[in-house]
């Protein structure tokens, strides 16, 4: 088992202890509500902060423009062609900076509007493509989108997967106890020891396999939830820091990179993955003998289910139970697969966009093809 899974195993054991028997994990959704604030993107950027940053950026750009004017005069006066052409290029960059600063001064609410526009565009495509008419909830701000994604990942992804894991743990507990049960018939210390449930090994193996897959799913969704939280809270700061750094010619590539990451990952990435997530998440129906509507049952209920299971196997209905189980499990994993494809598509497009924006914003080395290979 991979180390990541082992971390999750430990966490899941804690979750098992904490939440077995409950209809939902206590307060796990609080992670989203406490980490994603509706007031503003990082819960702390106030209008005075933004105004200060914009003002400082504008001052820097103006100082750069004045310096460029002096340099251009020197270049023209002394006939230094390279200096003149350099200043012309830099003037264009500074004008571009002023436009960017103007856009930011117009308020981050506009970014929220842009995000909702892109997301709703994707949703309308899904609605149109659905075989049966569906109406998906519309997004009206960046908070709506990020909050919704986080809630989906934690509330419907992690929670549901953990519930499955919890119930499978209970089942494994029971099955292992049964498997270890021995009946001894040894009058005068001579006789036989009978192990009636040793044949449960294949069932235990299936459950273990499913549990590993659900642990992987939990890892995926925990990672995605915190990725969304991080982007929502930190990337708006990249926007302002990017504009500030871009104002100076020396730090333009860093500023351009920050802006490219902001646009590609704050605006585009969540909007791209949202239709995939909302369309297919929460479809876990797996685990042997588990009801898809109420996977959490008590030990006694589970034992009664197990008795039914053995009755079924004894009367030749065992195969039917397995077929149902396989169908439910496959459907669950197919849902996960679709969501995973959505995330991969989102990442690919966002990385490509980072490359294109990097060229535009003064960071031409921001190549998506080589980005990760450098550091991994």
């Amino acid at each position, binding site marked *: *088992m991979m*180390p*990541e899974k*082992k*971390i999750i*195993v*430990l*966490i899941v*054991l*804690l979750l098992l*202890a*904490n939440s*077995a*028997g409950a209809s939902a994990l*206590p*307060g*796990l959704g*609080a*992670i989203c509500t406490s980490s994603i604030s509706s007031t503003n993107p*990082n819960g702390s*950027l106030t209008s005075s*902060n933004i105004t200060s940053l914009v003002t400082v950026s504008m001052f820097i750009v103006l100082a750069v423009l004045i310096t460029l004017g002096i340099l251009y005069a020197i270049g023209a006066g002394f006939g230094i062609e*390279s*200096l003149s052409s350099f200043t012309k290029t830099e003037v264009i960059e500074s004008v571009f900076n002023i436009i960017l600063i103007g856009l930011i001064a117009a308020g981050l609410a506009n970014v929220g509007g842009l995000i909702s526009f892109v997301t709703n565009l994707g949703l309308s495509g899904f609605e149109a493509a659905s075989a049966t008419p569906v109406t998906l909830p519309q997004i009206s701000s960046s908070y709506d989108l990020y909050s919704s994604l986080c809630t989906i990942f934690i509330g419907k992804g992690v929670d549901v997967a953990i519930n499955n894991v919890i119930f499978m743990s*209970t089942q494994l507990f029971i099955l292992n*106890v049964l498997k270890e*049960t*021995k*009946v*001894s018939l*040894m*009058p*005068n*210390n001579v*006789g036989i020891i009978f192990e009636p449930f040793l044949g449960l090994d294949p069932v235990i193996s299936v459950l273990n396999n499913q549990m590993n897959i659900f642990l992987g799913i939990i890892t995926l969704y925990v990672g995605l*939830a*915190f*990725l969304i939280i*991080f982007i929502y*809270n*930190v990337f708006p*700061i990249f926007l302002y*820091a990017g504009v500030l*750094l871009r104002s100076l010619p020396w*730090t*333009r*590539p*860093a500023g351009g*990179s920050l802006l490219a990451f902001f646009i590609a990952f704050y605006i585009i990435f969540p909007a791209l993955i949202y239709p995939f997530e909302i369309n297919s998440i929460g479809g876990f129906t797996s685990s042997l003998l588990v009801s898809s509507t109420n996977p959490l049952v*008590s*030990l*006694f209920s589970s034992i009664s289910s197990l008795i039914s299971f053995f009755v079924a196997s004894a009367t030749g209905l065992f195969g039917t139970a397995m077929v149902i189980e396989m169908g439910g499990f496959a459907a669950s994993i197919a849902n996960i697969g679709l969501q995973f494809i959505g995330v991969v598509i989102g990442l690919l497009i966002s990385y490509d966009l980072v490359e294109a924006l990097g060229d535009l914003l*003064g*960071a031409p*080395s921001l190549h998506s093809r*080589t*980005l990760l290979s*450098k*550091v*991994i």
Partner: protein
Amino acid sequence: MTIDYLLALTTAEFLKLPFYTTWFPIALIAAIAVIALLAFIMMISAFAGRDRVRVWAKVKIYEVLLSIVLIIVFLVVVGIVFSIDFSSSTGVFTSINLVANGCVAGGSTGTSTDLSTLAVCDMYYFNKNVQTLNSLVYYLALRFSFVPEIKVEYSTPGFNGGLGNLGVETKISLSPAALDVFSGYLLDALYTAFVVSQVQLLLLAASLVLFSVLMAIGFIARIFVITRTFGGAMIALGIGLGIIYPLLVCITYGYVNYGVQSTFPSGAIDIAYVSTLIGGVTSFLLAAIAQGIIGSYISIPGFVQFFQFAGYVGMGLVLVPILNVLIVDVFVIDFSQAVGERIDFASLLTRMI
């Protein structure tokens, strides 16, 4: 390694250090010497009627003059950057919730309010958070390893010549047996990730020295015609490691540390917390045995906080370093291309590793 040791070279001291300030006169003297030499070449070429040499010398004189302008601009910019208040109670980053309590200047650790000090402090406290997570995992795994396996056995009493020793036995494992093995791998993963964080901390602690040395080499080298491109590359690397990287660390790890602090407002992430958490788990296990119902609901205090804490720390160990290194690398590549020779330190590092 204490934070006092890491912060020994604070910005205030750094700005006073001889090796930081002495290279400015050296660079200026070198520039004047080079200009004098070029002027001499220009004069000779004018006498000799070699116009191409004269034009070349003229362009080079302009370039040296530009280097002097760059040094002056650099002095002004560095002065401004290191005088900005980032981490006091009214600092730039404090006001947008990017400074955890331990790093607010004037507190127990932070003495300066500049970028470098804050970056070192942020990284230091993040590493402490990693260690805390490590402790949590270790103690939990240790505690689980003490959960007993129960063997239940019943047999009828035996009689001489009669029917006896008929019985049933079974084993009950309250925690999965594989947990002991898993915990080893788990601790390995955390230890490995912690090494990366520790390297970042040392890099940040050395960033002021690196900044000073690289900028000195860069500006002096840039004055000479032959080493001009090399000088540009050094300047790019110096700014990348000395300003851009600490800035990104302050933003990203500042957020992570603040998130952890929000998770534990009292800051009491210690063994007492671990005991509470473990106590909850034990209560659950005992209750499970007593009631015979696995599905009984026993609350473990602080479990959600643990989950959130692990999420923040995991993000700081995996996502944040990649993001920071990428942006610094892009800056160094593009800026070094603009002012001198292209340098790609991330690729170089990857090849070396």
